């Protein structure tokens, strides 16, 4: 991997009463990468992102952009960031064009009218750019937000919950833009609580829960239909055989027992390729299997297995 364009080290935010809403969050983002910050609502994603862009003061930890520390030279760092924090917000009494001009003027390196035109074309707002923003649909605002964030040619794009309020078409378009940008070498950090989207959008995700980073996953690996693919499968057997079946599974270190449903179904986390072997194992042991059911898919099951079953399983073991 190339060097990190964004390097987050031990980020912590302590609010009043000494409670840490973000604790010990460290990750790196590489050039041209689309990195997802995934977690349920209230996991600290937004706080983390706002600490990176300087809207919220860090209690401790460091942020560096292309090797420059934010504390040492925040202006140099900030000019390399383009961001939409939560919803894109505009002066709705002005036209899209005038809104972009506002941001163009604030850019340290001058932004030419040509650049403005190019970016408007990229987000396909040519027809509406001179209309007042209050007439824009949410999707159009989102696109104008992307244009605004990219106007000063940042090397890092940060989007906080960008898919909020977007229709499926809008989401797909956004995904395509981000991919295009990634091909041009722009790195994107995007936060979301929607797994399926992150899976489609990102190269890699880091998962947060309760203010901490709990996992890091390369999406490509999840999508591979090779033997390494991890999935969650429910094996249904008879109530009177459940203890027997449980013992059998626990003897195998490759398979992890997540929990038991209704005293007759074992929910297991295992590699996809080993499903037939497990079934065979049950049959050979004389345990009757009534149903085998795949639970959830890829990132979603990973996410759930990480967050929902934390009390039952040790996170460290879950990491594959």
């Amino acid at each position, binding site marked *: 991997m190339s060097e990190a364009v964004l390097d987050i080290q031990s980020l912590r935010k302590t609010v009043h009463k000494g409670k840490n809403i973000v604790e010990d969050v460290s990750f790196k983002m590489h050039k041209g990468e689309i990195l997802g910050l995934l977690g349920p609502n209230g996991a600290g994603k937004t706080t983390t992102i706002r600490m990176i862009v300087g809207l919220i003061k860090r209690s401790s930890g460091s942020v560096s952009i292309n090797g420059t520390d934010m504390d040492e030279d925040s202006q140099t760092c900030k000019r390399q960031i383009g961001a939409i*924090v939560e919803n894109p917000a505009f*002066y709705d009494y002005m036209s899209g064009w005038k809104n972009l001009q506002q941001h163009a003027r604030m850019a340290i390196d001058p932004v030419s009218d040509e650049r403005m035109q190019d970016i408007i074309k990229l987000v396909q707002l040519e027809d509406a750019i001179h209309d007042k923003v209050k007439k824009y649909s949410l999707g159009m605002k989102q696109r104008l937000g992307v244009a605004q964030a990219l106007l000063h040619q940042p090397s890092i794009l940060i989007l906080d919950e960008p898919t909020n309020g977007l229709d499926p078409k809008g989401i797909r378009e956004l995904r395509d833009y981000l991919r295009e940008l990634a091909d041009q070498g722009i790195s994107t950090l995007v936060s979301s609580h929607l797994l399926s989207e992150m899976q489609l959008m990102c190269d890699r995700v880091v998962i947060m829960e309760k203010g901490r980073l709990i996992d890091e996953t390369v999406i490509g690996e999840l999508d591979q239909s090779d033997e390494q693919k991890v999935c969650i499968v429910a094996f249904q057997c008879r109530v009177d055989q459940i203890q027997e079946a449980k013992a059998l599974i626990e003897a195998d270190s490759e398979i992890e027992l997540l929990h038991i449903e209704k005293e007759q179904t074992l929910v297991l986390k295992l590699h996809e390729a080993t499903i037939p072997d497990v079934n065979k194992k049950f049959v050979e042991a004389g345990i009757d299997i009534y149903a085998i059911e795949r639970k959830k898919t890829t990132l979603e099951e990973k996410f759930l297995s990480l967050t929902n079953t934390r009390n039952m399983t040790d996170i460290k073991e879950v990491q594959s």
Partner: protein
Amino acid sequence: MITLIQNEWIKLWSKKRTWIFALFILLITIGIAFFFKSVIFDMDAANDENWEQDLEEEIAVQEEIMADEDADEWQVENAQMTIQQNEEMLASGINPNKTNNMIFLEETFPFLASFITLFSVIVASSIVSSEIDDGTMKHLLIRPYPRWKFITAKLITTVGFSLSLIVVLLVSNLLIGTILLGTGSLSTEIMVNNFETTPYLSTVGEVLPARVGLYVLNVLMFIIISFSVSILFRSQTLAVGIGIFILFGTNIAQSFNVLLADTSWYQYIFLPHLSLPEYAIRDEILPGVGLAFSIMVLSVYALVFLGACFTYFQRKDFAE
């Protein structure tokens, strides 16, 4: 910094509200001019050669009141004042019915300017808080400028707005005054009645520039207070409310002046000092309290307000 002020200025004048404020000042000035011409200034009387006789008749009436033993104390005082005023006018040959654009400007400026104070309070209270409420503030703060520059630009813009309205007021007032009431000069003599000392003779040139200059300082103070309150209390409504309260409060304070003038603390409250334009026609607003002292007290308050609001804004976490 210039860029930020330019941006703020464009945003301010892109709002309909701002234009309505300016238009209002223009229209009310014209309206007042017609009102004065038809109701207050008796244009027929102005050409009447018998004005001296009228004044003398009035003196005679007032003398009767003074001679009347049943007359109340206030009636006697009032009569005395009127007699003095009339005698003075007779002595210096001022026709009280005679009017021109200078007298009109001198007499209407305080009333018309109070609308500018009101509009300035509204703009000052909303220029920061509306951007926080609309979510556009966070998209400013992620740009490579220190935070204090953004609010400094906003404060300067608000002051610019007030000055513009003052210019609109002065220009429109002179124009309409000239058209309706004819040309006068700065040396036009006027009677100054400040309800404390005996009425005395002065000229427009002596009173008006001082009135306008002191008004600018006064409105600046209003801006600083509303601006700071809106930031410190994160509430546009509260700031407008407090601004308007102070606006009327200064009038109310004047009635407290007599009651509280003897207390040692009253002169350190900013409220009585917020009627700076009064100094155009009198030397002290409270016994022993002159212009220099008032400006000193207000400066201290201004520094405290601004210090608190800049410190707060610089450290604030934008979490919502």
